[in-house]
């Protein structure tokens, strides 16, 4: 049952083109793409929960855990392999999610949003208090190798970029499958009517718990890749405005298609970069207006543009 359908092929083809782009595109562009794709993985975590009707205003928690795992794994445990570090972040994040997920899955709506925010802010507080970890200044990530190979300077960034594209593609394939598999459909059902799901003999809490872990896992990968790309981590990753940005991008793209968060994150990165450049004093306002525009005119996100067009053609 491991067939790959047309969407799967599209995802793989896009990833292949992006990988090839590493050798053509200017470095600043690949760097923006790296960060945008890594961010999109966290957004995928938000979206997975959004499909089940839960909005996490604290996904930065797992983003941060993933990032700090990269830094601490290198500084404390002496792990320098990128894959091992990402795996470490994944395990740490899923482990944490396994514990707090027990609490979180009892909450819905605004309470879920607020509690996720509070938990993320507690991590922020702990990190700010940890002077050995550099408090708010955070610290730098050095000397990462890739299966024994180390790169220098620009090549290292290309390596991170390719790694990010590959990881994103793998996650996208998995998330696409799970969206259309039982778990994804049931999540939508929970969003629509939780009581009915219970009366179909399913446990909404178990399903939300499972998705919570998945969201934590992909968010940790996003955090890890961000740390590898920027070479720096700080508690800001767990601050609530960071999480707010993830929600923003999730809405921008919409929850309809697995590719939407990636497209939205890339778009967001460009909009923000140019907004900062051309109107350094009012870039937040521009973001706010874009967000309002999306909510009013494209309530299902940018992706509804694509799917609308396709339906017309068909």
């Amino acid at each position, binding site marked *: 049952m491991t067939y790959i359908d047309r969407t799967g092929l599209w995802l793989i083809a896009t990833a292949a083109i992006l990988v090839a782009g590493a050798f053509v595109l200017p470095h600043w562009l690949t760097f923006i793409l790296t960060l945008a794709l890594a961010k999109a993985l966290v957004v995928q975590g938000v979206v997975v929960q959004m499909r089940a009707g839960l909005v996490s205003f604290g996904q930065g928690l797992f983003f941060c855990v993933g990032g700090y795992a990269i830094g601490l794994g290198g500084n404390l445990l002496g792990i320098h392999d990128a894959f091992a570090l990402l795996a470490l972040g994944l395990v740490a994040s899923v482990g944490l999610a396994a514990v707090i997920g027990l609490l979180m899955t009892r909450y819905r709506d605004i*309470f879920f949003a607020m*509690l996720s925010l*509070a938990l993320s*802010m507690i991590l922020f507080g*702990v990190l700010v208090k940890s002077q050995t970890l550099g408090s708010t200044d955070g610290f730098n990530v050095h000397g990462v190798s890739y299966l024994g190979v180390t790169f220098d300077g620009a090549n290292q960034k290309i390596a991170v970029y390719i790694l990010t594209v590959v990881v994103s593609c793998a996650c996208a394939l998995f998330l696409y499958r799970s969206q259309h598999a039982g778990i994804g459909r049931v999540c939508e059902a929970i969003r629509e009517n939780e009581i009915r799901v219970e009366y179909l003999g399913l446990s909404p809490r178990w399903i939300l718990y499972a998705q919570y872990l998945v969201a934590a896992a992909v968010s940790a990968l996003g955090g890890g890749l961000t740390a590898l790309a920027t070479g720096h981590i700080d508690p800001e990753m767990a601050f609530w405005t960071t999480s707010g940005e993830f929600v923003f991008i999730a809405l921008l793209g919409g929850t309809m298609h697995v590719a939407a968060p990636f497209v939205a994150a890339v778009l967001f990165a460009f909009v923000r970069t140019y907004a900062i450049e051309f109107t350094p004093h009012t870039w937040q*306002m521009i973001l706010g*207006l874009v*967000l*309002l525009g999306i909510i009013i005119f494209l309530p299902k996100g940018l992706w509804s543009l694509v799917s609308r067009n396709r339906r017309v053609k068909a």
Partner: protein
Amino acid sequence: MNVGALPPARMRRLTDMTTFYAILMDGMIYASWLFLVAAGLTVIYGVMRILNMAHGSFYAIGAYSAASLVGWYFSSNGEANPYWSYAILVGCALLAGLVVGFVIEQGLLRFMYKRNELLMVIVTYALLLILEDATKLVFGVDPYFTYQPYSLLGRSMIGELAFANYDLALVGASVVVGGLCWFVLNRTHTGKVLRAVIHDREIAVAMGVNVRLMFAGTFIVGTTLGALAGALTAPSISVSPGIGVEVIVLAFAVVVVGGLGSIEGAVVGALLVGLTRSMAVHLAPEIELFVIYGVMSLVLAVRPQGLFGRTVARKI
């Protein structure tokens, strides 16, 4: 680093009466400020079911307009009676809240009341982003330092400690605001109608309540309360960009602890958060940063709907 001397000192302070009074006074002052900040948020949520993330921006707008106008009042005529500045503070807040609340409700929110609660959170998040920059465009990024109304009232000694009379007056102000909210909700016709809307919106509509009018009114009142909190805070701080974002999470914590939409809840939430924080500052400053989120998580874990929140069982 040497970390000596602290633990024994703290043990001594636990039994110290001055510290006890200080905790109580500081807690009360902070709690009344928290209540002022949170009242508007909880009123809007109670009636409209909108968790307003832009509440902090209303606070900031109130603070900025009060600070700039009071600043202008003192700089333009040096001989003026300084006590008028208090009227200016309150007047500013009312005007700013009225105008901003009206424009936002009529211009944006009223078109979106059918959307779900979470989407409204995000709409107000967008508002927050817009208002942050709008405030900056209007008032600039330089801090406004309007100290006159704060220092004018002098200080009082309570035990060995001096307290600014302005801060003590703030306690009075919050009692007045809380009392007014209570009076309107419980002793007036409008209050009765509002409570009907809070209790069950559909039935209220069926009973012929003009919900649109109620919503518009509530939003303007909520905005004005936010602006008032900002205006009353302005003289004791330096009004600078970002103050709105700082208060919003605090206000959330208070309201969530007390129970979303409940005025009594906001009072109790503010007292709980205020006193706990003041205790932390005096007895264990190192945990001060977590106290608020700690209280919030703890209350949510034990009583998800908050101390005064109601659970509505779903009818099937």
